[in-house]
């Protein structure tokens, strides 16, 4: 645990200090905030029952999953491979650092560093909604929404982004990931076969519709059940475990043949 914590600490510090990433997040947040202030959205309901509050909270947080995971995927893609490019891997291998600690520490640091700006933004949203008349419990509701919608999506994206560039060149992964994010979440399955709408969809739409009982789709239809939400979360978690395990095994194999 100590090793994981040490890796996490140092990696988080390095990861959070990238001005380019903050700038990119800033652009996205400004866009999000602007859309929240549009006349058709600025008016909140007069009556706040629990269901309405959850729906408002869910949509506000879900919107972060439209574009921001793209930033996370691209920004975290170099976190593990940079040890190779910076020629740090030999030094790291000469220490008593366990491989699984290394992988978990890197993953955790990459994930939390990507969630940090989002977490801050969610607080801004909470304050904005309170100013617009929402009750104070919107704050903890937004936190729950953050955990239910944002965390699984980012964990999934970060796990793949940290692991895949070990095998695939970095720029290739970044291109493929960008294309995947659109294909896997927003492309109409009638156009070409896609993961959108399946339990492998990471953007959080299944959880939003089934647990928060609201949707961002124009037709207003709720397509998913609680079981779908449960399976979605389980499948995403399983993918995280599988890909991180595969990364650790890959590193083990590379060390054996070195």
């Amino acid at each position: 645990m100590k090793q994981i914590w040490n890796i996490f600490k140092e990696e988080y510090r390095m990861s959070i200090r990238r001005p380019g990433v903050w700038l990119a997040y800033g652009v996205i947040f400004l866009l999000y905030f602007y859309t929240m202030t549009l006349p058709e959205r600025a008016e909140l309901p007069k009556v706040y029952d629990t269901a309405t509050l959850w729906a408002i909270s869910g949509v506000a947080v879900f919107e972060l999953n439209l574009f921001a995971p793209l930033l996370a995927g691209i920004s975290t893609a170099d976190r593990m491979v940079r040890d190779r490019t910076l020629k740090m891997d030999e030094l790291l291998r000469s220490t008593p650092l366990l491989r699984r600690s290394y992988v978990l520490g890197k993953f955790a640091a990459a994930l939390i560093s990507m969630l940090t700006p989002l977490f801050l933004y969610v607080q801004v949203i909470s304050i904005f909604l309170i100013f617009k008349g929402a009750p104070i419990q919107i704050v903890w509701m937004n936190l729950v929404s953050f955990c239910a919608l944002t965390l699984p999506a980012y964990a999934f994206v970060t796990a793949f982004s940290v692991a895949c560039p070990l095998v695939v060149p970095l720029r290739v992964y970044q291109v493929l990931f960008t294309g995947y994010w659109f294909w896997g979440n927003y492309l109409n399955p009638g156009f070409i076969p896609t993961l959108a709408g399946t339990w492998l969809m990471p953007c959080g739409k299944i959880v939003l519709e089934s647990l928060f009982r609201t949707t961002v789709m124009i037709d207003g239809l709720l397509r998913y059940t609680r079981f779908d939400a449960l399976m979605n979360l389980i499948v995403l978690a399983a993918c995280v475990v599988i890909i991180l395990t595969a990364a650790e095994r890959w590193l083990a194999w590379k060390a054996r043949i070195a």
Partner: protein
Amino acid sequence: MKRSTGITWRYSLRAHLAGQLWLPAAIWALFIFLVLTQLDYNAKEIAVTFPVVVIPLLAGITAGYALLEDPALELQLASPVSAARMLLRRLGGQLAIVTVLVALFQAVCTAAGLDLSGYGSLFMRQVFWMVPCLALSALGCALTLAFSQTTPAVLLISIVWLLQLILRHWIIDHNPARYFFLFTGLFFPQHPAANAIQLSLVVITAVLFIISWMLLQRQERYI
């Protein structure tokens, strides 16, 4: 063209571009597969999606890498190659590769009997993919040089690409946003402002390349 130019291209290909060939080739193969298996459904849309939507993303992201991800960058900067030539050489190779792939792709689509005249004349269909490709390449270049690293550039290119795809209706309906729209060739080829949009993108591309050229002259930022 001097004979040495050909040799430089050959070495550039081996040193820089070889690793960049297989990704566009693999995506090309995937889209060929999709087109040929969807002939009775939406093959036409797919046929236009590859050059108009996919190729510009590829070009935009790899443009930055083409410039700065060079193990012998300091040696390159110390050689008597002007900034303009360096830009041309690095990006030219990439653009040549995508041009060949798009040409082959279009040839296969034509051979498969796809009638794409609904997406404009043959000339306009080339304009519709080349202009966005150059625009995103120029943007990728300028951002990479401005930040002196590739990751922020890749981030912003991806955001631009995704935002434009998802908000395409809003963009095309609003002035002046429509004059920055990249995917006219797929979604709105018959739009009255289609030609004006391409012209606007050409101007923006030229400005971005000039900015890139100016930034590349400040060589010390990249070593």
